[in-house]
């Protein structure tokens, strides 16, 4: 009873404080600043490599070597004083040793989970386009936006759409936002070769005849519905913070159809050095996720700022995680150059359905050996360098170069996965 009274009193005080301060009426100036002065073009690119020993395609044991190059263009076009159209398009070209082992027998080397097959499944291209339209009110205190998104790769097609509303008040010291997104996706399953119709080989080694419990997924759709809430607040002349909350519901085929699982109670069969799978991963057809994150930025002086981020995440698959990152931009040459070291820490618990290689039993309803759903910690260290020319003096045709951004990060996971990523960004503004 005491706690109920305390909570209620605190709640009432909070609500009254919301209305305590009188804010002067915004005067409608005769001059209205454009939301976006001129067309801006961002060219972004990344080069990513990773390696590890727990490939999900081969049931949690195998090479995770992967290389990816992703060039992306983002063009923001002011349609008038209040409206902006943004087109974001990119591709991701990757080569993956583990994906190549969806069919480990189509290359010219003996099949082995730690050796990439040189066949067709080794590489692929993912293409994506997002178109966003935003409208701001005359006083710039209300912003509405809508977007559509299309993405495609050889085994996955996605169509998404959504909208958002942002309200600024308290002399633009406070901002609240709500965003809704829907993705209607479809798998084009590429099952492991041994599960496909017509598979037979004369060189299968094992006790008895090879058989598996595989059945094709009846429903290949995968839908995601998300509602995002955000709150930002200026705390002082040098500090501001924000908090984000997402509510995400997924349904449909949430398993990855080409990720093998091996059972401890089923006989093992091999072709060359490769163990044939017992099934693919089976995960529940619903998932509810709740990430809660916050940012706090502090302007220490004209040379140094502090950018921090924290997120707590939980879902109904048994996963809880914490994410924390810090970045310290250090400016020199009157702000023309910025060096920013970064560090990120991440930890998660395992999903209820995870077990390592050949630790599942065939009588379970749900199972996965995808180490992305296992218990682990990770550390990410990096640094970035930015060149900023407010006058955009260097010109290419009618576009002036405003920003050059280079960034490198090293990522290390406690299960042995490691990755390197180099990113570059160039921002041009039209004269």
């Amino acid at each position, binding site marked *: 009873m005491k706690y109920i009274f305390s909570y209620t009193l605190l709640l009432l005080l909070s609500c009254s404080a919301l209305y305590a*301060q009188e804010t002067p009426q915004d005067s409608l100036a005769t001059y209205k600043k454009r939301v976006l002065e001129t067309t801006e073009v961002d060219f972004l690119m990344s080069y990513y490599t990773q390696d590890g020993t727990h490939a999900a395609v081969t049931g949690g044991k195998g090479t995770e070597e992967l290389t990816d190059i992703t060039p992306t263009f983002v063009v923001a076009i002011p349609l008038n004083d209040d409206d902006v159209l943004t087109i974001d398009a990119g591709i991701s070209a990757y080569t993956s040793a583990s994906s190549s082992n969806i069919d480990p027998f189509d290359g010219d080397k003996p099949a082995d989970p730690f050796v990439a097959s040189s066949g067709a499944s080794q590489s692929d291209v993912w293409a994506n386009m997002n178109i966003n339209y935003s409208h701001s009110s005359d006083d710039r205190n209300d912003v509405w936006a809508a977007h559509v998104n299309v993405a495609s790769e050889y085994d996955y097609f996605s169509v998404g759409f959504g909208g958002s509303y942002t309200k600024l008040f308290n002399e633009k010291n406070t901002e609240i936002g709500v965003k809704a997104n829907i993705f209607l996706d479809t798998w084009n399953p590429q099952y492991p070769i041994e599960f496909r119709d017509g598979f037979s080989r004369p060189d299968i080694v094992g006790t008895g005849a090879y058989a598996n419990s595989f059945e094709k997924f009846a429903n290949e759709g995968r839908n995601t519905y998300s509602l995002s809430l955000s709150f930002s607040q200026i705390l002082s002349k040098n500090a501001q913070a924000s908090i984000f909350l997402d509510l995400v519901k997924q349904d449909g085929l949430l398993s990855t159809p080409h990720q093998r699982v091996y059972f401890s109670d089923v006989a093992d069969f091999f072709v060359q050095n490769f163990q044939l799978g017992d099934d693919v991963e089976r995960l529940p057809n619903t998932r509810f996720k709740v990430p809660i994150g916050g940012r706090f930025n502090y302007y220490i002086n004209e040379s140094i700022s502090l950018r921090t981020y924290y997120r707590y995440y939980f879902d109904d698959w048994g996963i809880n995680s914490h994410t924390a990152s810090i970045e310290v931009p250090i400016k020199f040459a009157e702000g023309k150059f910025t060096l920013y070291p970064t560090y990120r820490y991440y930890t998660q618990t395992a999903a209820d359905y995870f077990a390592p290689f050949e630790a599942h039993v065939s009588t379970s309803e749900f199972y996965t050996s995808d180490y992305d759903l296992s218990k682990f910690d990770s550390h990410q260290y990096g640094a970035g360098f930015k060149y900023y020319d407010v006058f955009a003096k260097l010109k290419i045709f009618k576009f002036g170069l405003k920003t050059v951004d280079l960034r490198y990060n090293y990522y290390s996971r406690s299960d042995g996965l490691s990755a390197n990523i180099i990113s570059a960004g160039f921002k041009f503004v039209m004269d």
Partner: protein
Amino acid sequence: MNYKKILLIGFCIASLTSCVAVREYEKVNLNDPDMKLSANSIERFETNFQIYREAASGANGGKTGGGCGCN
């Protein structure tokens, strides 16, 4: 996490709106590009690979699970 605690924290944060009103001409430091309350555009690639390699996603402006065959 206790949902009542989340709600209470939310209202306490909302009450911060009454604490300060920095005028537009006083926002010079806050308008610095390094002070914006969102990830830099170049960070999108890191956010993408983190979504693939980690179970958690969202609350950072990136994907929340749709649009890719990721977690």
